[in-house]
Protein backbone atom coordinates (compact mmCIF):
# COMPACT_ATOMS: atom_id res chain seq x y z
CA UNK A 1 0.00 0.00 0.00
CA UNK A 2 1.29 3.48 -0.85
CA UNK A 3 2.55 5.75 1.92
CA UNK A 4 0.39 8.72 2.85
CA UNK A 5 1.29 11.93 1.10
CA UNK A 6 2.47 14.70 3.48
CA UNK A 7 1.02 17.24 1.03
CA UNK A 8 -2.48 15.94 1.95
CA UNK A 9 -2.00 16.69 5.64
CA UNK A 10 -3.33 19.89 7.19
CA UNK A 11 -1.70 21.09 10.43
CA UNK A 12 1.18 19.95 12.62
CA UNK A 13 1.83 16.36 11.65
CA UNK A 14 3.52 13.38 13.21
CA UNK A 15 5.11 10.63 11.11
CA UNK A 16 4.61 6.94 11.93
CA UNK A 17 5.45 3.68 10.20
CA UNK A 18 2.80 0.98 10.47
CA UNK A 19 3.45 -2.69 9.82
CA UNK A 20 0.23 -3.75 8.18
CA UNK A 21 -0.78 -7.40 8.01
CA UNK A 22 -0.19 -8.69 4.45
CA UNK A 23 0.66 -5.13 3.27
CA UNK A 24 3.99 -4.55 4.93
CA UNK A 25 5.22 -1.15 6.15
CA UNK A 26 3.26 2.03 5.44
CA UNK A 27 4.31 5.55 6.36
CA UNK A 28 1.37 7.54 7.74
CA UNK A 29 0.98 11.07 9.08
CA UNK A 30 -1.38 12.11 11.86
CA UNK A 31 -2.69 15.38 13.22
CA UNK A 32 -4.50 15.83 16.52
CA UNK A 33 -7.89 16.70 15.09
CA UNK A 34 -11.09 14.67 15.57
CA UNK A 35 -13.85 14.75 13.00
CA UNK A 36 -17.28 14.14 14.57
CA UNK A 37 -19.30 11.17 13.36
CA UNK A 38 -22.12 12.37 11.07
CA UNK A 39 -25.47 12.39 12.88
CA UNK A 40 -27.93 9.69 11.84
CA UNK A 41 -25.64 8.10 9.29
CA UNK A 42 -23.98 4.73 8.94
CA UNK A 43 -20.60 4.24 7.33
CA UNK A 44 -20.88 1.15 5.14
CA UNK A 45 -18.29 -0.76 3.17
CA UNK A 46 -17.96 -4.15 1.57
CA UNK A 47 -14.71 -6.03 1.15
CA UNK A 48 -13.72 -9.26 -0.52
CA UNK A 49 -12.36 -12.13 1.59
CA UNK A 50 -8.89 -10.56 1.56
CA UNK A 51 -10.09 -7.26 3.01
CA UNK A 52 -9.99 -5.37 -0.29
CA UNK A 53 -12.67 -2.66 -0.44
CA UNK A 54 -15.28 -3.37 -3.14
CA UNK A 55 -17.98 -0.85 -2.11
CA UNK A 56 -17.99 2.34 -0.05
CA UNK A 57 -21.13 4.35 0.69
CA UNK A 58 -21.24 8.14 0.53
CA UNK A 59 -20.72 8.55 4.30
CA UNK A 60 -17.60 6.36 4.14
CA UNK A 61 -16.15 8.41 1.29
CA UNK A 62 -16.89 11.70 3.03
CA UNK A 63 -15.53 10.64 6.43
CA UNK A 64 -12.37 9.01 5.06
CA UNK A 65 -11.39 12.10 3.09
CA UNK A 66 -10.51 9.93 0.08
CA UNK A 67 -12.25 9.88 -3.28
CA UNK A 68 -14.29 6.76 -3.94
CA UNK A 69 -11.90 5.53 -6.63
CA UNK A 70 -9.00 5.91 -4.17
CA UNK A 71 -10.77 3.54 -1.75
CA UNK A 72 -12.07 0.85 -4.11
CA UNK A 73 -9.40 -1.81 -4.58
CA UNK A 74 -7.46 -0.78 -1.46
CA UNK A 75 -7.01 -2.81 1.72
CA UNK A 76 -9.39 -1.73 4.48
CA UNK A 77 -6.26 -1.04 6.54
CA UNK A 78 -5.87 2.19 4.53
CA UNK A 79 -7.82 3.60 7.52
CA UNK A 80 -5.52 2.13 10.20
CA UNK A 81 -4.52 4.73 12.78
CA UNK A 82 -1.21 4.25 14.60
CA UNK A 83 -3.00 4.60 17.97
CA UNK A 84 -4.90 1.36 17.30
CA UNK A 85 -3.25 -1.62 19.05
CA UNK A 86 -3.14 -4.92 17.20
CA UNK A 87 -4.97 -6.51 20.14
CA UNK A 88 -8.05 -4.37 19.43
CA UNK A 89 -8.57 -6.39 16.26
CA UNK A 90 -7.85 -9.69 18.00
CA UNK A 91 -10.50 -12.19 17.17
CA UNK A 92 -11.82 -10.33 14.14
CA UNK A 93 -10.78 -12.90 11.55
CA UNK A 94 -11.37 -15.86 13.87
CA UNK A 95 -14.89 -14.63 14.68
CA UNK A 96 -15.71 -14.03 11.04
CA UNK A 97 -14.31 -17.38 9.93
CA UNK A 98 -16.52 -19.02 12.57
CA UNK A 99 -19.56 -17.24 11.17
CA UNK A 100 -19.79 -14.83 14.12
CA UNK A 101 -20.24 -11.09 14.12
CA UNK A 102 -17.32 -8.90 15.22
CA UNK A 103 -17.83 -5.65 17.13
CA UNK A 104 -15.23 -3.13 18.16
CA UNK A 105 -14.46 0.53 18.83
CA UNK A 106 -12.03 1.83 16.24
CA UNK A 107 -10.09 5.05 15.74
CA UNK A 108 -9.81 5.56 11.99
CA UNK A 109 -7.24 7.63 10.12
CA UNK A 110 -8.37 10.02 7.39
CA UNK A 111 -6.47 10.99 4.26
CA UNK A 112 -5.82 14.46 5.78
CA UNK A 113 -4.27 12.95 8.95
CA UNK A 114 -7.27 13.70 11.17
CA UNK A 115 -9.22 10.88 12.86
CA UNK A 116 -12.74 9.73 13.68
CA UNK A 117 -14.06 7.17 16.16
CA UNK A 118 -16.60 4.52 15.21
CA UNK A 119 -18.35 1.51 16.66
CA UNK A 120 -17.77 -1.08 13.97
CA UNK A 121 -19.65 -4.28 13.26
CA UNK A 122 -18.46 -6.75 10.64
CA UNK A 123 -20.41 -9.73 9.30
CA UNK A 124 -19.48 -12.31 6.71
CA UNK A 125 -21.38 -12.31 3.41
CA UNK A 126 -22.42 -15.94 3.02
CA UNK A 127 -23.73 -16.85 -0.42
CA UNK A 128 -24.67 -20.44 -1.29
CA UNK A 129 -22.91 -21.56 1.87
CA UNK A 130 -19.61 -19.83 1.05
CA UNK A 131 -18.08 -16.67 2.53
CA UNK A 132 -17.63 -14.31 -0.42
CA UNK A 133 -16.78 -11.11 1.46
CA UNK A 134 -17.58 -8.97 4.47
CA UNK A 135 -19.93 -6.10 5.31
CA UNK A 136 -18.61 -3.51 7.72
CA UNK A 137 -21.04 -1.01 9.25
CA UNK A 138 -19.81 1.77 11.49
CA UNK A 139 -22.10 3.78 13.74
CA UNK A 140 -21.73 6.61 16.23
CA UNK A 141 -20.10 5.53 19.51
CA UNK A 142 -20.68 7.11 22.92
CA UNK A 143 -18.08 9.53 24.22
CA UNK A 144 -17.82 7.50 27.43
CA UNK A 145 -16.88 4.38 25.45
CA UNK A 146 -14.39 6.36 23.35
CA UNK A 147 -12.71 7.67 26.49
CA UNK A 148 -12.48 4.14 27.91
CA UNK A 149 -10.90 2.96 24.64
CA UNK A 150 -8.40 5.83 24.58
CA UNK A 151 -7.06 4.64 27.97
CA UNK A 152 -7.22 0.93 27.14
CA UNK A 153 -5.67 1.23 23.68
CA UNK A 154 -2.79 3.34 25.02
CA UNK A 155 -2.02 0.64 27.59
CA UNK A 156 -2.15 -2.03 24.90
CA UNK A 157 0.07 0.00 22.56
CA UNK A 158 2.61 0.59 25.33
CA UNK A 159 2.72 -3.17 25.95
CA UNK A 160 3.37 -4.01 22.26
Amino acid at each position, binding site marked *: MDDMNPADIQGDMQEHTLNLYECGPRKVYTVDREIPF*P*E*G*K*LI*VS*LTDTKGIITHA*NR*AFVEMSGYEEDELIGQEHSILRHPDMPAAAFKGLWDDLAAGK*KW*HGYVKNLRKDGAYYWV*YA*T*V*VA*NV*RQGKVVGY*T*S*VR*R*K*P*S*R*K*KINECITLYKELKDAE
Partner: protein
Amino acid sequence: MPNNRKYNLTVSPDFKPDRIAGWYIFNTWLQKKTGLDIHLELYDNFEEQRSAIRNQQIDLIYANPFDTAMLVRELDFKALVKPADKADEAVIVCCEDNPANCIEDLREGCRIIATDDPDINMIGMRMIEPADLDDSNTTTTQVANYVVLAKRLISGDADIGFFLKEAYDDLTNITKRRLKVLVTSQISVIYHSVLAAPSLADQYESLSQALLNINTDAKGPGVLDALGIKGFEAMSEEDAEFMIDLMETLRD
Protein backbone atom coordinates in the same frame (compact mmCIF):
# COMPACT_ATOMS: atom_id res chain seq x y z
CA MET B 1 -48.82 -18.62 -17.31
CA PRO B 2 -51.96 -18.15 -15.15
CA ASN B 3 -53.14 -21.13 -13.16
CA ASN B 4 -56.10 -22.08 -10.97
CA ARG B 5 -54.35 -21.86 -7.62
CA LYS B 6 -55.30 -19.35 -4.96
CA TYR B 7 -52.53 -17.22 -3.50
CA ASN B 8 -52.35 -15.03 -0.42
CA LEU B 9 -50.87 -11.55 -0.44
CA THR B 10 -50.08 -9.70 2.76
CA VAL B 11 -48.60 -6.34 3.64
CA SER B 12 -46.22 -5.34 6.43
CA PRO B 13 -48.57 -4.20 9.24
CA ASP B 14 -46.78 -0.84 9.51
CA PHE B 15 -48.67 0.62 6.54
CA LYS B 16 -50.64 3.76 7.25
CA PRO B 17 -54.35 3.09 8.07
CA ASP B 18 -55.47 5.37 5.24
CA ARG B 19 -53.66 3.06 2.77
CA ILE B 20 -55.86 0.02 3.48
CA ALA B 21 -58.10 0.79 0.51
CA GLY B 22 -54.97 1.32 -1.59
CA TRP B 23 -53.76 -2.22 -0.94
CA TYR B 24 -57.13 -3.64 -2.00
CA ILE B 25 -56.95 -1.53 -5.18
CA PHE B 26 -53.40 -2.82 -5.74
CA ASN B 27 -54.49 -6.43 -5.29
CA THR B 28 -57.37 -6.05 -7.74
CA TRP B 29 -54.99 -4.48 -10.28
CA LEU B 30 -52.35 -7.19 -9.76
CA GLN B 31 -54.90 -9.98 -10.29
CA LYS B 32 -56.02 -8.41 -13.56
CA LYS B 33 -52.45 -7.94 -14.78
CA THR B 34 -51.25 -11.45 -13.89
CA GLY B 35 -54.43 -13.51 -14.16
CA LEU B 36 -53.68 -14.97 -10.73
CA ASP B 37 -56.30 -15.50 -8.03
CA ILE B 38 -54.85 -13.51 -5.13
CA HIS B 39 -56.49 -12.92 -1.76
CA LEU B 40 -55.30 -9.96 0.33
CA GLU B 41 -54.92 -10.86 3.99
CA LEU B 42 -54.03 -8.02 6.37
CA TYR B 43 -52.75 -8.62 9.89
CA ASP B 44 -53.06 -6.35 12.91
CA ASN B 45 -49.51 -6.91 14.08
CA PHE B 46 -46.17 -8.42 13.10
CA GLU B 47 -46.45 -11.47 15.37
CA GLU B 48 -49.70 -12.61 13.76
CA GLN B 49 -48.21 -12.03 10.33
CA ARG B 50 -45.00 -13.95 11.13
CA SER B 51 -47.05 -16.85 12.41
CA ALA B 52 -48.98 -16.96 9.13
CA ILE B 53 -45.74 -16.78 7.15
CA ARG B 54 -44.21 -19.66 9.09
CA ASN B 55 -47.39 -21.67 8.56
CA GLN B 56 -46.89 -21.21 4.80
CA GLN B 57 -50.10 -19.21 4.49
CA ILE B 58 -48.42 -16.36 2.59
CA ASP B 59 -47.31 -16.44 -1.04
CA LEU B 60 -46.62 -12.78 -1.72
CA ILE B 61 -45.67 -10.06 0.74
CA TYR B 62 -44.81 -6.39 0.88
CA ALA B 63 -42.33 -7.06 3.65
CA ASN B 64 -40.78 -5.02 6.40
CA PRO B 65 -36.97 -5.07 6.03
CA PHE B 66 -36.67 -6.58 9.51
CA ASP B 67 -38.42 -9.73 8.25
CA THR B 68 -36.49 -9.99 4.98
CA ALA B 69 -33.79 -12.21 6.51
CA MET B 70 -36.34 -14.76 7.70
CA LEU B 71 -38.25 -14.68 4.44
CA VAL B 72 -35.24 -14.93 2.11
CA ARG B 73 -32.76 -17.02 4.07
CA GLU B 74 -35.05 -19.33 6.03
CA LEU B 75 -38.11 -19.63 3.83
CA ASP B 76 -36.59 -19.15 0.34
CA PHE B 77 -38.73 -16.17 -0.65
CA LYS B 78 -37.44 -14.32 -3.70
CA ALA B 79 -37.02 -10.55 -3.78
CA LEU B 80 -38.87 -9.11 -6.78
CA VAL B 81 -39.05 -5.33 -6.47
CA LYS B 82 -38.71 -2.47 -4.02
CA PRO B 83 -40.57 0.85 -3.96
CA ALA B 84 -38.73 3.64 -5.76
CA ASP B 85 -37.30 6.45 -3.59
CA LYS B 86 -38.80 5.08 -0.41
CA ALA B 87 -36.17 4.05 2.13
CA ASP B 88 -37.18 3.46 5.75
CA GLU B 89 -35.70 6.16 7.96
CA ALA B 90 -36.27 6.66 11.68
CA VAL B 91 -36.78 9.88 13.62
CA ILE B 92 -36.26 10.23 17.36
CA VAL B 93 -38.51 12.90 18.77
CA CYS B 94 -39.14 14.44 22.18
CA CYS B 95 -41.68 16.93 23.48
CA GLU B 96 -40.98 20.53 22.49
CA ASP B 97 -40.39 21.58 26.13
CA ASN B 98 -37.96 18.73 26.85
CA PRO B 99 -34.54 20.24 27.74
CA ALA B 100 -32.76 17.68 25.52
CA ASN B 101 -31.52 19.06 22.22
CA CYS B 102 -29.54 16.06 21.00
CA ILE B 103 -29.26 12.35 21.75
CA GLU B 104 -26.29 12.88 24.07
CA ASP B 105 -28.55 14.97 26.36
CA LEU B 106 -30.68 11.90 27.17
CA ARG B 107 -30.10 10.13 30.48
CA GLU B 108 -30.43 6.64 32.00
CA GLY B 109 -34.02 5.77 32.79
CA CYS B 110 -35.15 7.36 29.53
CA ARG B 111 -38.77 6.39 28.77
CA ILE B 112 -39.26 5.38 25.14
CA ILE B 113 -42.56 5.11 23.32
CA ALA B 114 -42.76 3.18 20.05
CA THR B 115 -45.03 1.17 17.79
CA ASP B 116 -44.31 -2.48 16.96
CA ASP B 117 -42.55 -1.42 13.72
CA PRO B 118 -39.46 -3.65 14.04
CA ASP B 119 -36.99 -1.95 11.71
CA ILE B 120 -37.74 1.53 13.03
CA ASN B 121 -37.40 0.35 16.62
CA MET B 122 -34.10 -1.33 15.84
CA ILE B 123 -32.71 1.78 14.14
CA GLY B 124 -34.04 3.89 17.04
CA MET B 125 -32.24 1.76 19.63
CA ARG B 126 -28.99 2.06 17.66
CA MET B 127 -29.37 5.84 17.46
CA ILE B 128 -29.60 6.24 21.27
CA GLU B 129 -26.33 4.38 21.81
CA PRO B 130 -24.23 7.59 21.74
CA ALA B 131 -25.97 8.45 25.06
CA ASP B 132 -24.98 5.01 26.47
CA LEU B 133 -28.62 3.98 26.41
CA ASP B 134 -29.84 0.48 25.64
CA ASP B 135 -32.49 -2.05 26.73
CA SER B 136 -30.96 -2.30 30.19
CA ASN B 137 -31.32 1.35 31.21
CA THR B 138 -34.43 2.44 29.31
CA THR B 139 -38.08 1.42 29.38
CA THR B 140 -40.24 1.08 26.28
CA THR B 141 -44.01 1.42 25.97
CA GLN B 142 -45.63 0.07 22.83
CA VAL B 143 -48.61 1.75 21.20
CA ALA B 144 -50.80 0.85 18.24
CA ASN B 145 -49.80 3.54 15.76
CA TYR B 146 -47.83 6.73 15.22
CA VAL B 147 -50.75 9.11 15.86
CA VAL B 148 -51.28 7.59 19.31
CA LEU B 149 -47.50 7.71 19.81
CA ALA B 150 -47.43 11.47 19.15
CA LYS B 151 -50.36 12.10 21.52
CA ARG B 152 -48.81 10.06 24.32
CA LEU B 153 -45.46 11.81 23.85
CA ILE B 154 -47.07 15.23 24.04
CA SER B 155 -48.99 14.11 27.15
CA GLY B 156 -45.69 13.41 28.87
CA ASP B 157 -46.08 9.62 28.97
CA ALA B 158 -42.56 9.18 27.56
CA ASP B 159 -39.32 11.13 27.07
CA ILE B 160 -38.70 10.16 23.45
CA GLY B 161 -40.56 8.44 20.62
CA PHE B 162 -39.36 6.38 17.67
CA PHE B 163 -41.11 7.39 14.44
CA LEU B 164 -40.96 6.18 10.87
CA LYS B 165 -39.89 9.41 9.16
CA GLU B 166 -42.78 9.24 6.71
CA ALA B 167 -45.25 8.91 9.60
CA TYR B 168 -43.67 11.83 11.46
CA ASP B 169 -43.78 13.99 8.34
CA ASP B 170 -47.48 13.17 7.98
CA LEU B 171 -48.38 14.49 11.45
CA THR B 172 -50.30 17.76 11.47
CA ASN B 173 -48.29 20.95 11.80
CA ILE B 174 -50.01 21.64 15.13
CA THR B 175 -48.75 18.30 16.46
CA LYS B 176 -45.25 18.76 15.04
CA ARG B 177 -44.96 22.20 16.65
CA ARG B 178 -45.28 20.50 20.05
CA LEU B 179 -42.50 18.05 19.24
CA LYS B 180 -38.75 18.35 18.71
CA VAL B 181 -36.61 16.15 16.45
CA LEU B 182 -33.39 14.99 18.13
CA VAL B 183 -32.01 12.96 15.23
CA THR B 184 -33.11 11.58 11.85
CA SER B 185 -31.47 8.55 10.32
CA GLN B 186 -29.93 8.90 6.85
CA ILE B 187 -29.26 5.26 6.05
CA SER B 188 -30.85 5.11 2.56
CA VAL B 189 -30.43 1.35 2.04
CA ILE B 190 -33.12 -0.13 4.30
CA TYR B 191 -36.45 -0.48 2.54
CA HIS B 192 -39.60 -2.56 2.23
CA SER B 193 -39.74 -5.01 -0.67
CA VAL B 194 -42.12 -7.30 -2.52
CA LEU B 195 -41.10 -10.92 -1.93
CA ALA B 196 -42.63 -14.06 -3.42
CA ALA B 197 -42.72 -17.54 -1.90
CA PRO B 198 -41.46 -20.62 -3.76
CA SER B 199 -45.14 -21.46 -4.38
CA LEU B 200 -45.04 -18.61 -6.93
CA ALA B 201 -41.75 -19.66 -8.52
CA ASP B 202 -43.29 -20.01 -11.98
CA GLN B 203 -44.75 -16.49 -11.68
CA TYR B 204 -41.64 -14.57 -10.48
CA GLU B 205 -40.99 -13.08 -13.91
CA SER B 206 -44.60 -12.11 -14.69
CA LEU B 207 -45.07 -10.55 -11.24
CA SER B 208 -41.81 -8.60 -11.52
CA GLN B 209 -42.64 -7.34 -14.99
CA ALA B 210 -46.15 -6.28 -13.97
CA LEU B 211 -44.79 -4.31 -11.01
CA LEU B 212 -41.84 -2.79 -12.87
CA ASN B 213 -44.16 -1.60 -15.66
CA ILE B 214 -46.90 -0.31 -13.39
CA ASN B 215 -46.12 3.31 -14.30
CA THR B 216 -46.88 2.66 -17.98
CA ASP B 217 -50.13 0.79 -17.31
CA ALA B 218 -53.32 2.80 -17.83
CA LYS B 219 -54.51 2.27 -14.25
CA GLY B 220 -51.04 2.00 -12.73
CA PRO B 221 -50.54 5.63 -11.66
CA GLY B 222 -53.87 5.56 -9.79
CA VAL B 223 -52.84 2.38 -7.99
CA LEU B 224 -49.48 3.89 -7.04
CA ASP B 225 -51.17 7.05 -5.82
CA ALA B 226 -53.45 4.96 -3.60
CA LEU B 227 -50.36 3.29 -2.10
CA GLY B 228 -48.30 6.46 -1.76
CA ILE B 229 -45.54 4.89 -3.87
CA LYS B 230 -43.86 6.45 -6.93
CA GLY B 231 -43.18 3.14 -8.65
CA PHE B 232 -41.18 -0.03 -8.25
CA GLU B 233 -37.52 -0.79 -8.96
CA ALA B 234 -35.98 -4.17 -9.64
CA MET B 235 -34.47 -5.86 -6.61
CA SER B 236 -31.84 -8.49 -7.25
CA GLU B 237 -31.00 -11.40 -5.02
CA GLU B 238 -27.78 -9.61 -4.08
CA ASP B 239 -29.69 -6.38 -3.26
CA ALA B 240 -31.72 -8.39 -0.75
CA GLU B 241 -28.66 -10.16 0.65
CA PHE B 242 -26.82 -6.82 1.02
CA MET B 243 -29.72 -5.38 3.04
CA ILE B 244 -30.01 -8.51 5.17
CA ASP B 245 -26.29 -8.39 6.03
CA LEU B 246 -26.56 -4.69 6.86
CA MET B 247 -29.60 -5.29 9.08
CA GLU B 248 -27.69 -8.06 10.82
CA THR B 249 -24.99 -5.59 11.87
CA LEU B 250 -27.68 -3.43 13.50
CA ARG B 251 -29.39 -6.13 15.55
CA ASP B 252 -27.06 -5.60 18.51
